[in-house]
């Protein structure tokens, strides 16, 4: 029984933008990320769920209740806005308990819940400050606290970390996950950062141009991208795509390969000959970017420092068992690697419960 269900939800402006025909089902207590490039309709989808936008078609069901026609206030959810949306004239404490006051929660309970949530978000001692007297990260926490104190079962977050620096992003990210777990929240989390989506969520919805491109666990998306778009959006660095004929496949095939699976070989000794275009030392590894007329984004990861100069010609081996074959016309996945892919997922730590049996390629296609 799913907690949040979207059924063919469409919202467009003069036939453009927005989202079309989105269907999703999310069990209670799940952490769902909506991932996609800028302008793909993530915020629109979230606002549709929140009730800040009305769908032109489709149904939205929350906790067994059809809320399609209900206003935001009747949907029993909380939301963290991308822009924080803190009330500038109210102090931190007043901001957090605004909703409780509106709903006439008693003073004693209000104070207690406020104290709890401020401790949980590490805002103790800042109660009297105005939002303008806080740092970006602290404001973000206030927005989180305001959502958490409501104790609503569904929490929507729109790129809540987009304005933070890398370190803060990490710590607030952890806060969000802890909070969701502690309160047993069902979370819908919008982001354009694939690392964030992969590390936080049980399920990722990858969107493009207002449509769902792929739904799956983070490890699904990483090891079996359903399309070349998914392959190039997920992973850092993303998957390299090689034209089929270069590797002896027919014309309508595109081969995808994760850089960590590519091996270097002597010039002329591998599957392809390439020119080293750039060398990036990453600390533990070195990434070589390779130029090849038939390949897009071809790279190879080497352990330690590399002893190769830019402009040198090197050969690369593309192991047969790691190749993903895409249809080069439709961009869809035709054949996935034979091997169990999990052993190679060292880039993205799979979440604890992401260990489901991989669905057959047929189901992956049906997900589209």
């Amino acid at each position, binding site marked *: 029984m799913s907690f949040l269900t979207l059924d063919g939800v469409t919202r467009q402006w003069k036939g453009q933008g927005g989202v079309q025909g989105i269907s999703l089902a999310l069990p209670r207590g799940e952490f769902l990320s909506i991932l996609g490039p800028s302008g793909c309709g993530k915020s629109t989808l979230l606002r549709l769920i*929140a*009730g*800040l936008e009305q769908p032109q078609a489709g149904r939205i069901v929350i906790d067994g209740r059809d809320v399609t026609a209900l*206003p*935001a*206030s009747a949907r029993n*959810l*909380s*939301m963290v*806005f991308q*822009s924080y*949306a803190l*009330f*500038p*004239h109210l102090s931190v404490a007043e901001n957090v308990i*605004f*909703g409780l006051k*509106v*709903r006439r929660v008693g003073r004693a309970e209000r104070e207690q819940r406020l104290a709890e949530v401020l401790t949980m978000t590490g805002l103790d001692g800042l109660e009297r400050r*105005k939002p*303008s007297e806080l740092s970006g990260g602290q404001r973000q926490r206030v927005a989180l606290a*305001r959502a958490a104190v*409501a104790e609503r079962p569904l929490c929507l977050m729109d790129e809540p970390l987009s304005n933070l620096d890398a370190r803060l992003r990490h710590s607030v990210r952890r806060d969000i996950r802890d909070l969701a777990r502690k309160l047993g929240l069902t979370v819908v989390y919008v982001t354009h950062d694939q690392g964030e989506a992969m590390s936080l969520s049980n399920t990722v919805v990858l969107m493009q141009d207002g449509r769902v491109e792929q739904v799956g666990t983070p490890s699904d998306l990483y090891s079996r991208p359903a399309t070349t778009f998914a392959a190039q959006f997920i992973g850092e660095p993303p998957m390299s795509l090689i034209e089929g004929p270069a590797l002896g496949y027919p014309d309508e095939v595109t081969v995808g390969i994760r850089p960590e699976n590519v091996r270097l070989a002597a010039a002329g000794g591998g599957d392809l000959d390439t020119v080293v275009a750039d060398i990036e030392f990453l600390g533990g590894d070195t990434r070589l970017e390779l130029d090849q007329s038939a390949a897009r984004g071809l790279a190879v990861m080497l352990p330690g420092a590399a002893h190769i100069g830019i402009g040198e010609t090197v050969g690369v081996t593309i192991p047969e068992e790691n190749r993903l074959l895409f249809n080069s016309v439709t961009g869809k996945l035709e054949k996935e690697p034979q091997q169990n892919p999990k052993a190679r997922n060292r880039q993205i730590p799979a979440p604890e419960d992401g260990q489901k049996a991989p669905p057959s390629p047929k189901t992956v296609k049906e997900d589209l």
Partner: protein
Amino acid sequence: MTDAFTLERRRRALHGWLLLSPALIMLATFAFYPSLATVITSLWSRGTRRNPAEFIGLENYRYLFDDPTFWQVVSNNLFYAAVTIPVSMALALVMALWANARIPARSFIRTAYFTPTVLPMIAAANLWLFFYTPSFGILNQIGALFGAGPVNWLGQPDTALWAICVMTIWKEAGFFMVFYLAALQTIPPDLQEAAEIEGASRWTYTRRIVLPLLMPTTLFILVNAMINSVKLIDHLFILTKGGPSDSSKLILYYIWENAFAFFDRPSAAAMTVLVLLLLGALAAFQFLVLDRRVHYR
């Protein structure tokens, strides 16, 4: 080195004074000097060719306080302010909230509200003169439709000041609305969305979020309205000339009368000084008390 330093400091000071001087000269010529001259005039008797003006201290003020017309005019002006300021501000706020909502023909409504402001006070007064005219004025014609007898709105002491107030409210509300509208548009729409998700009704959102955020604007408008309630008297010249029997006479009109109709300059000067003191006190109140209670973004 010290020499260079001193030189530089002098150069900067000179620079500063140069930048200040235009404003300083203008203010001195047109504000400070006239105020000072007024204070001095108010302390001297009215000079005629036969007995020249002499210093009489506060005698002019005592004379003023013994003048029943003065008190009548003061109470008229207080009444005028007490009616026009709150009503026009409340009306402006309501119109702004409405014109800011998502409604059809929004820009038409905004323009319509703003039109009275564009009219010169004199033109507006002429318009209202036509509204108020007994028997064939619009108000009486509408009244006649419902069987009401003709009323000479401007011609009787009971209604004249009210008629002036109504016209002023009509004129000012649109002007104040523009400030409210501008302030409303600086409030990010996501605040309303956040409040809505928290379950706040429109009214709660307006009362708890919008009104506090509009406080700086309200204060600004309040100060303007107070100044206008003393300053704007153009319509009196057209509509009532302060009559009948001083029932609609405002203080600035009375000052003008004293100075240029009765040629009693010292009386006019004394009243002007009192008005200046009052406005000064209002300004001080605004800066010292209200400003602290207002949230500025």
